[in-house]
């Protein structure tokens, strides 16, 4: 008993520290994975996620198109926007960032972005992500068409939660209708059509893991180019280079609830999206996965917001890691933001609890910065609260 008390005293004493230095353990033997309770920022989840998942799964999550110029620029762009507190700070308890997005009541302007195949991240997969988002103040989740769990099964995971469905255009309208029926019958009211990423190539993923047998653009395919026409002559996969606005018109007729177009980076495309019946757009470069040397999503957000001029809600994604990032996007005209990679880090690192913690962490960070800037409500976060130095 006395000995135990002695040991307790010793543990915190400088004598114990001195003893430890006499026989130091080699640093390499000190390996310890941080626990969920130790996560301080969203960035802390990534190494845990990295350690938990298979390398190809990590690469799929981490990398972007081409040289990843745009992937990097997505992060850099947040540094080009300064937060300018124009009002006196208020207690975080006075901040209420709730809003309604196309009929969905949101406590925070934060949404789980559609990302593919979550079962490889964690056995709970998409169902776990939906449970986590529902637990985190009923956060709206967008489910990727490349889900590893069927829509109906995911939606059953969190009764009362809101799940929307994302998909890539299917040239055959019968197949499109069939997909829409599947999504809507499962209970996905909102539909997101991703219209970017027409011809992307993840060369870093290819470099690091060199997936066997996958034919990369630019490789000889054995077909004589003389026999080919159009884009195929240049060894381009034609699967996504046919997209048209007429197709969006057709989809509009099939979707009973909100129709969201994801991948808008130009004010003209934002105008066209409204013209063709979009209920909202997502300003997004697919987290740097769509087009290398394209702009960061943040740098084009102000001009797109100007073009939309409040007619429809603008959602934003690509590069968000902090509450301040969300604040900047909201200030530059977004009505809400989507979290892709970070939610994958959360789920992959600590399962449902990790995804929930990550979403709540960013919700809290956003409230903190809003409070510090004296923004009690969502409309208070506007362009007067930031100074942009876009290059």
């Amino acid at each position, binding site marked *: 008993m006395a000995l135990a008390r002695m040991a307790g005293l010793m543990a915190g004493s400088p004598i114990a520290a001195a003893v430890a230095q006499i026989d130091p353990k080699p640093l390499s033997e000190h390996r310890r994975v941080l626990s969920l309770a130790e996560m301080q920022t969203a960035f802390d989840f990534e190494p845990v996620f990295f350690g938990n998942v298979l390398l190809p799964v990590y690469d799929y999550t981490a990398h972007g198109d081409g040289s990843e110029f745009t992937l990097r620029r997505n992060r850099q762009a947040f540094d080009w926007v300064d937060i300018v507190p124009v009002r006196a700070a208020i207690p975080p308890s006075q901040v209420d960032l709730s809003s309604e997005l196309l009929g969905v009541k949101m406590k925070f302007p934060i949404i789980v972005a559609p990302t593919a195949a979550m079962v490889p991240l964690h056995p709970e997969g998409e169902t776990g992500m939906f449970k986590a988002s529902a637990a985190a103040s009923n956060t709206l989740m967008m489910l990727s068409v490349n889900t590893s769990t069927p829509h109906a099964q995911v939606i059953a995971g969190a009764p009362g939660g809101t799940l929307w469905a994302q998909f890539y255009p299917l040239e055959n309208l019968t197949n499109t209708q069939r997909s829409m029926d599947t999504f809507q019958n499962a209970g996905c009211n909102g539909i997101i059509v991703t219209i970017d990423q027409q011809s992307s190539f993840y060369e870093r993923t290819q470099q690091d893991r060199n997936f066997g047998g996958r034919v990369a653009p630019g490789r000889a395919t054995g077909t004589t180019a003389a026999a080919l026409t159009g884009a195929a002559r240049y060894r381009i996969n034609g699967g996504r280079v046919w997209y048209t*606005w007429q197709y969006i018109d057709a989809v509009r007729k099939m979707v009973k609830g909100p129709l969201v177009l994801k991948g808008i980076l130009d004010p003209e495309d934002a105008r066209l999206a409204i013209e063709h019946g979009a209920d909202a757009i997502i300003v997004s470069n697919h987290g740097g996965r769509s087009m290398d040397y394209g702009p960061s999503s943040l740098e084009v957000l102000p001009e797109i917001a100007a073009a939309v001029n409040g007619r429809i809600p603008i959602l934003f994604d690509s590069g968000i890691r902090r509450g301040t990032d969300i604040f900047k996007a909201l200030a530059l005209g977004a009505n809400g933001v989507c979290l892709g990679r970070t939610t994958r880090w959360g789920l992959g690192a600590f399962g449902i609890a990790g995804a929930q913690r990550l979403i709540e962490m960013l919700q809290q960070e956003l409230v903190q910065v809003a409070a510090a800037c004296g923004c009690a409500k969502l409309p208070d976060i506007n362009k007067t609260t930031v100074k942009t130095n876009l290059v």
Partner: protein
Amino acid sequence: MMPEDKAALAEKPPAGTASRRQAIAGVGTTVAAGMVGAAMPASAQSPAPLRMPAPAPLLVPRADLVNVLEYEAQARLVLGPAKVAPILGSDRTVTDRITLRPRMNIPTRDLDLTCTLFGDQHFTPIIVGPMADQKRFHSEGEVAMARGASAAKAAMVVSSEASMPLAAIAQAATTPLWLQVYANSPKVKDVLAAAGAAKAVIVTVNATAGGPTIPASARIDWSAVDTVVKGTSLPVIVKGITSPQDAKEAVARGVKGVVVSNYRGGNAAALTGTLLLIAPVVQTVGDQIPVLVDGSFRRGTDILKALAFGAKGVLIGRPVMWGLAAYGADGVQGVVEMLQTELARYMAMCGRPSLAAVNSSLVRVHAPLPAASNNRG
């Protein structure tokens, strides 16, 4: 190992299996053993009598390379540090200040990159540029370069300092050949006399053949250009234009095209991006003659930017040489096809189905990036 053995190795990828990452990074053990760097056999440097013969450099299988820049490390493996030095390096400073504007829902399935230059139809506006003495980098030199360029359906410019006879090169080529000659070179007359197989003559005005660099301030010797224009019935292209004034003068002298270029006789330190020099020249002479460009084009996006500024064609230098050195004609084909595909991909993603639809609305020029912040990620 004798040089010809080395060349033979470059032709057919060796069967060795290095760690792919290791080989790309150029840190294969064979390099450390000194085999690659020295023309001397490795055994001559080592007294050990029972040493195993040095294995071949372990090149990455060509089909595993994912971008043009990866060819550079392979060329370094094959050539060794001394021989590869003249063709190393890239300048990304200006390219990284320019972003492209993607557009959605514009179908590009019928994508068409064909263009007409000096009377010939070209598969894409990507042309293999002039480089002297290519046997320095591969035993089959210009003939292999022509074979590779032709396989990729790209035109090729043959240097007046070529290491192989024009007739042999022409025999290997199925695409248009252009001839390049230095203004004031004593070879001008010979080059023009032998130009039968060529479709155009490029006269380089800002460098001397193997000689000292001409200062940037030096005036272009227009009389030397006149000599070339008068000496041939082929269209003459002036390479080395950096200002609209020079381009205007070139048109007045009967020149049929210009290449915006800041090439300074292989002095890499003098390189700066040419991308921002294109638009003023195009504004001045673009409606009269095609404006071409060269200088550090490494990605399809770089080429698309040049086309957006009004260039009608882009000359590729070092990357095709990396391809030639490492993999012979196959490497040249690989590099050119990779650039063609990248150009096509980004045209598709910017919603430009043809070169006619490529214009300045596609690009945005930004200030140089501020110093990196400490913001993680």
